[in-house]
């Protein structure tokens, strides 16, 4: 029963993605109403299934329900032994109940526990609300089907990540969330700004994903299977002790922290968050205000037993959270547009959540995530109506800025620099560009010029084709202001 419900939770968004994707690939046009209904059906069926799982868990007092869809990929061990490979696999390699001959397996396993069930339900609720909002917001927009296709990718990625029982499955969903985010930032594809910002988001995600992949495979190697249950011993979340050594936990934890920093826009990757607001308001609300931005914190929560193995790692998590919080607090107060302001306000809460995780709290960050996600979604979907609200307030209360001007209130001169620092978002993006991207790109462009000259010389032609068209490829990635 629980297996069927668990499969239903995962399969409903997957079917939606496949349906919308195949229709688009085969150029079968779908009407807006059909797309909306398909999305609603997937969301509602997934939500009902997750509610049913919660009910069964509460009735049976079960804290941990594992649903395995079997081995997606499985390489038998016997063959490896024939090849003379040493048995480096530790005793705990095998998942309980797994046949002993499995040497490498990519198990599609989903876990429903006190972390994943609230996260899955929150995802379905917020995605359902946003899909209903978007079906009106994007009515008759030529990108309507495209939006819902990317949205279904996002939903699938979020559900896979939330309910993942192994780190590889989590990585699978993590990547889908990253791609859909980048493509939705670039949703208004006729303009350069969104496209450039989409590429920026994608670049940060790819770098963070590289760290995640290394962490996942290192963990797979160390713990034998990449299974969260195996990693955390027998205890269900948030209990359980990591079975790897503190040094290994530090290594894997650092990689995961790097990945989480990229996904949750922690320092030094905070620059992508306001850029992501170039996308349509529904996607900004659900991705960067509510769900996607919390995925890094979710990862840290899921890997809680690992963090507890290393004090240094916990200290680093707290420091990263606090420094991001201070930075985001300053930036949020001086942004000149509502979506950027909300983005940094969101970052303040995310960094506080990360700090809480670093202090060893588990339930409080989870409640914080849910509360913050719901509140921020509401704020962001109301952002387009802000001017109307603001004018209503001014009509009722008077203009506070005009009142301040009458009193002659102005910022002290010594705060100007701090103001500019905050307004320019700490210059994080220009710093990354100047000190990391530019030197590497310059060296590669020099190599490119040399290669062209060498080839031209070998061809007996002094003209170096294309050299004159070479540009600085990073320049358009830098968003001014």
């Amino acid at each position, binding site marked *: 029963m629980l297996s069927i419900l668990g499969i239903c939770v995962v399969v409903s968004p997957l079917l939606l993605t496949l349906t919308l994707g195949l229709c*688009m690939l085969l150029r079968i046009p779908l009407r807006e109403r059909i797309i909306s209904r398909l999305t609603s059906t997937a969301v509602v069926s997934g939500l009902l299934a997750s509610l049913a799982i919660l009910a069964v868990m509460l009735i049976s007092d079960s804290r941990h329900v594992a649903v395995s869809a079997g081995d997606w990929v499985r*390489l038998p061990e016997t063959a490896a032994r024939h090849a003379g490979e040493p048995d480096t696999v530790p005793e705990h390699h095998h998942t309980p109940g797994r046949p002993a001959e499995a040497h490498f397996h*990519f198990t599609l396993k989903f876990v429903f526990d006190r972390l994943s069930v609230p996260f899955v339900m929150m995802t379905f609720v917020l995605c359902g609300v946003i899909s209903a909002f978007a079906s009106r917001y994007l009515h008759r927009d030529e990108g309507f089907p495209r939006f819902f296709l990317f949205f279904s990718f996002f939903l699938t990625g979020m559900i896979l990540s939330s309910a993942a029982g192994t780190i590889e499955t989590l990585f699978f969903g993590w990547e889908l969330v990253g791609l859909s985010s980048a493509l939705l930032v670039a949703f208004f594809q006729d303009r350069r700004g969104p496209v450039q910002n989409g590429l920026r988001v994608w670049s940060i995600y790819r770098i963070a*994903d590289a760290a995640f992949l290394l962490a996942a495979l290192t963990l797979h190697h160390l713990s034998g299977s990449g299974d969260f249950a195996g990693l955390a011993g027998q205890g269900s979340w948030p209990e359980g002790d990591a079975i790897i050594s503190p040094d290994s936990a530090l290594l894997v934890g650092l990689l995961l922290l790097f990945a989480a920093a990229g996904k949750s826009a922690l320092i030094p990757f905070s620059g992508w968050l306001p850029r992501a607001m170039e996308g349509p308001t529904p996607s900004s609300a659900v991705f960067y205000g509510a769900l996607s931005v919390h995925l890094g914190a979710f990862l840290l929560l899921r890997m809680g037993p690992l963090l507890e193995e290393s004090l240094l790692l916990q200290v680093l998590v707290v420091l990263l959270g606090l420094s991001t919080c201070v930075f985001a607090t300053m930036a949020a107060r001086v942004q000149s547009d509502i979506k950027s302001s909300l983005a940094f306000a969101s970052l303040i809460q995310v960094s506080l959540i990360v700090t809480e995780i670093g202090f060893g709290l588990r339930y409080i960050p989870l409640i914080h995530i849910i509360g913050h996600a719901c509140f921020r979604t509401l704020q962001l979907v109301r952002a387009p109506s802000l001017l109307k609200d603001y004018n209503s307030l001014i009509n009722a209360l008077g203009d506070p800025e005009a009142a301040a001007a009458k009193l002659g209130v102005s910022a002290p001169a010594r705060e100007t620099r701090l103001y500019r620092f905050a307004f320019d978002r700490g210059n994080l993006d220009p710093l990354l560009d100047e000190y990391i991207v530019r030197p590497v790109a310059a060296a*590669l462009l020099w190599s490119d010029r040399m290669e062209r000259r060498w080839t031209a010389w070998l061809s007996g032609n002094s003209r170096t084709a294309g050299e004159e068209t*070479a540009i600085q*490829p990073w320049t358009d990635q830098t968003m001014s202001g």
Partner: protein
Amino acid sequence: MISELHLPWLEIGILLPLLGAVICGFTRNRLRGHRIALLFAGLTSVCTIGEWIDFGTVQAFEAHDHWDLLQWLTGRSDILVIDELSAPLPALTSLLFLLVLLATLRTKLERFPLSLTLLSLSLTNATLSCHDPWLLIILLSLSILPALFELRQRGQSTRVFAIHMGLFIVLLLAGWALVDRSDGTASASGLSAALLTAAALLRAGVAPVHCWMTDLFEKASFGTALLFLTPMTGAYAVMHLVFPVVPGWAMHSIAVLSLITSLYAAGMAAVQTDARRFFCFLFLSHSSLVLSGLELVNVIGLTGALCVWLSVGLSLTGYGLTIRAVEARIGRIQLNRYYGLAEHTPTLAGLSLITGLSSIGFPGTIGFVGMELLVEGCVEFYPLVGLILVISSALNGISILRAWFRIFTGCRFQTSVSLRSRPAERFSVVVLSLLIIGGGLWPQPGVASRHHAAVELLRLKDRGLFDIDAEPTQPESPAVGPLNTPKNAPATPSQPGTAYAAWQPLATPVTFPATFRSVDNAAQ
């Protein structure tokens, strides 16, 4: 005794395109020539897929044709042979040729060499089925000619291509001649190893001798350049001719240089402004990644490398096809501007994204599991190698989306003619997409097949069973292999047939097969 297939698939797969090339050569009408080329490429594709299926039913490590013409002529049954490694390669190659021919627009038929393309298909299929070293060298040399002829026909300078490929042939001939005459002395084997290693580096386009690749992409037609490189006959040649006989230092050199090339090419792809050069570096990064992965000595890593070999061939050919299709509509693509073609060519935009993401091992595509296995295999023994692979993959991912954004988004493309994809192009797109997504969602059959091949290859390496030049240096017991040799075992001096696994610490010797011919056959 080599097992037999049920039909002469291999010979048909070679002779059919050869016949097609002759008929196309005599056909003046280009449109009719195109149809003939499609017919023969399609039939060849069916035959090679049949060969792959038939090989699966034989359940042997290697097999040859049922009515083997070459056996009748030469008395040897081990010339045209497919094994676990090469079984899917002719099928993949034939499919790639068919799709490229299918996606060639009528407007490009005047310039696209149909006859030479079919000749290339025949030579490539022969190369991928050939286990005789000298014949393999001859075929590798001949397969250069179609590309060379095309460059000459187009009035382009052939010097860069000719110099590199000429040097490759000379080095390969000299190196193999020394191996053939080797008396086992260290100097002879050292020289031959150096020559063969240099040849391998040249053909695989390992930096810094990769300029012929960018030159080919810039000067030849995109289709020809694509089909010359994507079957990765260079890697096949390295596996069959070089790895079996070169000592540890040579393998180590190839592996390290491949890895550096993978990272370097990934970086170069990220800064290119010309789409063809961008694609070339992207391909080079992936093919180098495969080459470095093939030298892994653990079964997971080798399985991953073999999977990536297939997925990269499929994905990057599809990706190249989309660039070619866009080029056919708007001319050479510069990546320093935006084109905004998604509105006009949504199908191509979709395929471009799917194939590009598949090549970097994005989840849900055919490349995902292969890349995961490859990095897992590296991380297990050589974390630094795994790190470099992951960075290369991340850079490639950034480059692919950058190119996608430049070509398909960023502005509105104004045109008075329809740029929509043609039915044949759409067919190619759907076939490729289904293969890529189908292979990604249901990867077990493909991975199991490559895993079996990897296990057999490592078993051969362990036991030296297929080594014709050297006595097996390890007992046949499965329990005794290079990887479970004591870690501090003393290194044996290099000798023909004995090599070191490139990523293995040098203290652990590995014996590689000189060819994939079995001892039994050699004795015959």
